[in-house]
């Protein structure tokens, strides 16, 4: 029964310079049964990746670790263990070895010395099971992130393992890719009864597992059914983790004295419970007063079109006649699928690429006229920490100012301001940006744009790939910039929940056109519209719809966690 059995596992990474090394694994006892689907949660640095790597004998911990009946400490067992436990990593690009899909899938069995006829069969089997058979002759670099991750899974499947360990396989994917990968994992579990260990930062993915392990400081902090683990909301927050939205709402209601189950994770279940409690005949829902946006148009696009690689075989219309007006102080959520043209749009708004036709006006002036104007429109790319290169944080942030030719005094002043805006004090100035944590790196990268004192800030997926706590911190920084510095913000995001919570206005891109441009209430409050645009419906909006179908008059503003709790508190019978 027992597939992985670890007793008193400890592991320490080597000491670099003066950094204090801590135990990445601290006396862990763990048992995973054959055929189990286990999710592992934990903030960055909690030791979950290290634990995962021990399962594949990539890391040999102290203590007793037996995998599939094999002692991991014995060197002669390593290859047998790697044969029975396959591993999928976070970055899809960095685990594909071959330039043709089927050759990559064959890499594992080739290493194992499987007979050629058998490899062909296995590759066929593996690609079929991840739904990538039709791409078997494709080049991986031409595939989407989700497809690449499925190839990576196929590469493992072809080794016929009994267990697959996935280390944040969806962290770098868009919602469609994420869904593809999760469906593949669930299907494998269901049909092939493969043992699955899934490390993730997404609570909704963890909720799909049969068992949930929460790691903290190199130890196992929680271990149980996802529902039970999540139900302890306070503990989860202490561990710097989120809980599913419905669990959080149930927790808040319980705290207000409502008699409601604590282990709710799905919308349907929540609606049932709520109906059991019962709604008042009459209730008031006070709408939040909206800050009046000033009428001054700060950025405007006129008949913007962009054609990729014009007059070539790859020609593609990326943007088609875009007319947008952004007013001072607005917070705009820019959403749409990968390939909908939103990234192209942000780069044109900043003057990085020139439109094929049309123009962008900043306060009435064409941005292609003057480089100085473009500096007023700050653009922060996805994974901005990959652009860091200086020897210390101060120089990194000062880089843009040096390019602009600012004097020493001014540089000092503005760097300080910019770093303060992302909550980084003087203790960071001398540190190397490469020694920082993921979240800190990202904040430095954001500061390195803020230092130019832009009047508009465009952010492309500012929270991608971060753990929940860091995600929240960055979001708070952004909201602060808007509220305290009066910044106009355009944020590209795949997280409907984030957009629903903080944006004033929403622009939806679809096939290079603006499919929607208006108040967020008019789109998030209308699930039909959302579906037509192919967008994910926020969980709270789903709940609202179920309740509406049951005859409850739910106001259209109820699509965020905040408003849902507010509404339920007023509307439920005590």
């Amino acid at each position, binding site marked *: 029964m027992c597939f992985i059995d670890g007793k008193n596992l400890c592991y320490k990474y080597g000491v670099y310079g003066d950094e204090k090394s801590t135990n990445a694994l601290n006396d862990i006892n763990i048992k995973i049964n054959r055929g189990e689907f286990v999710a592992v949660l934990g903030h960055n640095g909690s030791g979950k990746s290290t634990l995962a790597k021990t399962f*594949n004998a*990539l890391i040999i911990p102290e203590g007793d670790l037996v995998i599939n009946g094999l002692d991991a400490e014995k060197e002669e067992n390593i290859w047998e263990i*790697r044969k029975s436990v396959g*591993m999928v*990593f976070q*970055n899809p*690009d*960095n*685990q594909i*070895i*071959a*330039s*043709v899909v*089927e*050759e990559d899938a*064959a*890499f*594992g*069995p*080739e*290493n*194992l*010395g499987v*007979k*050629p006829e058998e*490899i*062909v069969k296995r*590759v066929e089997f593996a690609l079929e099971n991840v739904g990538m058979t039709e791409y078997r*002759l*494709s*080049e991986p*670099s*031409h595939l989407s992130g989700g497809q690449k991750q499925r190839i990576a899974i196929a*590469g*493992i499947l072809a*080794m016929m393992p009994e267990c697959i360990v996935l280390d944040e396989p969806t962290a770098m994917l868009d919602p469609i890719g994420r869904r593809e990968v999760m469906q593949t994992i669930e299907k494998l579990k269901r049909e092939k009864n493969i043992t699955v260990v899934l490390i993730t930062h997404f609570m909704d993915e963890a909720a799909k597992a049969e068992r949930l392990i929460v790691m903290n400081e190199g130890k196992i902090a929680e271990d149980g059914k996802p529902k039970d683990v999540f139900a302890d909301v306070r503990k989860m927050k202490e561990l710097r983790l989120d809980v599913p939205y419905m669990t959080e709402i149930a927790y808040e209601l319980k705290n207000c004295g409502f008699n409601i189950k604590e282990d709710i994770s799905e919308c349907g279940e929540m609606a049932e419970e709520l109906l059991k409690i019962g709604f008042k005949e009459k209730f008031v829902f006070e709408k939040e007063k909206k800050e009046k946006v000033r009428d001054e148009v700060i950025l405007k696009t006129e008949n913007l079109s962009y054609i990729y*690689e014009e007059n070539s*075989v*790859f020609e593609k219309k990326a943007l088609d006649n875009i007319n947008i007006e952004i007013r001072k102080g607005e917070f705009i959520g820019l959403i749409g699928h990968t390939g909908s043209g939103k990234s192209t749009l942000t*780069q044109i708004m*900043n003057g*990085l690429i020139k439109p094929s036709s049309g123009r962008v006006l900043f306060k009435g002036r064409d941005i292609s006229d003057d*480089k100085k104007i473009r*500096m007023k429109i700050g*653009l*922060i*790319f996805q994974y*901005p920490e*990959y*652009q*860091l*290169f200086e020897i210390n944080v101060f120089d990194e942030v000062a*880089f*843009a100012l040096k*390019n*602009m030719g600012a004097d020493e005094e001014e540089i000092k002043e503005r760097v300080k301001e910019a770093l303060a805006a992302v909550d980084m004090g003087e203790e960071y100035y001398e540190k190397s940006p*490469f020694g920082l944590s993921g979240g800190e790196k990202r904040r430095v990268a954001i500061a*390195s*744009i803020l230092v*130019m004192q832009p009047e508009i800030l465009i952010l492309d997926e500012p929270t991608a790939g971060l753990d929940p706590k860091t995600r929240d911190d960055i979001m708070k920084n952004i909201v602060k910039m808007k509220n305290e510095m009066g910044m106009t913000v355009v944020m590209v995001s795949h997280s409907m929940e984030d957009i629903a919570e903080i944006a004033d206005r929403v622009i939806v891109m679809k096939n290079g056109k603006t499919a929607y441009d208006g108040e967020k209430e008019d789109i998030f409050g209308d699930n039909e519209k959302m579906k037509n645009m192919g967008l994910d419906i926020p969980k709270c909006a789903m709940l609202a719809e179920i309740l509406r179908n049951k005859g409850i008059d739910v106001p259209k503003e109820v699509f965020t966690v905040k408003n849902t709790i507010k509404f339920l508190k007023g509307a439920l019978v005590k």
Partner: protein
Amino acid sequence: MKITIGRHYPVESPIHRLDARVKIVGVFLYVTAIFIAKGAAEYAVAAIFTFIVIYMTNVPVKMFLSGFKNLAVIIFFTAILNIFFSNEGNVIWKAGILKITDMGIVTAIRLTVRLLLLVIGSSVLTLTTSPMELTYGLESLLKPLKKVGVPVHEIAMMISIAIRFIPTLTEELEKIKKAQSARGVDFESGNFMQRAKNFIPLLVPLFISSFRRADELAMAMESRGYRGDEGRTRMKKYLLNVQDKRAGIIMVVFLVIIILMRILI
């Protein structure tokens, strides 16, 4: 931007199915034949043969021509030089040091045709063979060198990984370039020193990311059981089948015909 590396064009065709080794050796024979060819008759035979092969690859002719495009300038200039500066043959036209002779024109045409055939012919190899097969073919052909201590497998693996990562790193460089432009770096203007300095914010992030990728890739390879050449098999059985042998014989016959024509005509 999508870059097709090695310009491999993966479709089904009898040429695609051929063993990489046969194709590599075949290209050698072909190139030899083209260099031996001299008269119009030989070139005509070679051209017909080339076009039959191209037709069999199922690759659009456009793809072959795009490879030729980069070399067009070179071919054009060699042709011009040959036309105007040839000393042999009867003078047809003369102006100062420039003169056109009948032999000059013939040489120019011969050279152009030769280069064209060479480029198009060797494109057959890269277009129909995946980089993996190509490296495997080379590995296999160079295997005898292993006996004298050359790490043939490792070199082949390195080449194929390098090929695999070219599009990934190109894309990454493009991203970094844009990100640094957004921080006010001007890559377009400035003097030589300024431009050289601008490489630092490009190369440092690219190197760091390459190291990270290398690290992760090594781990992924290890976790998939890679331990070098030892005990390794290949999915594709690289046994020469009837088709391969037939193709090999055809290439030899082609070379022999060209040689005979050269001698006899």
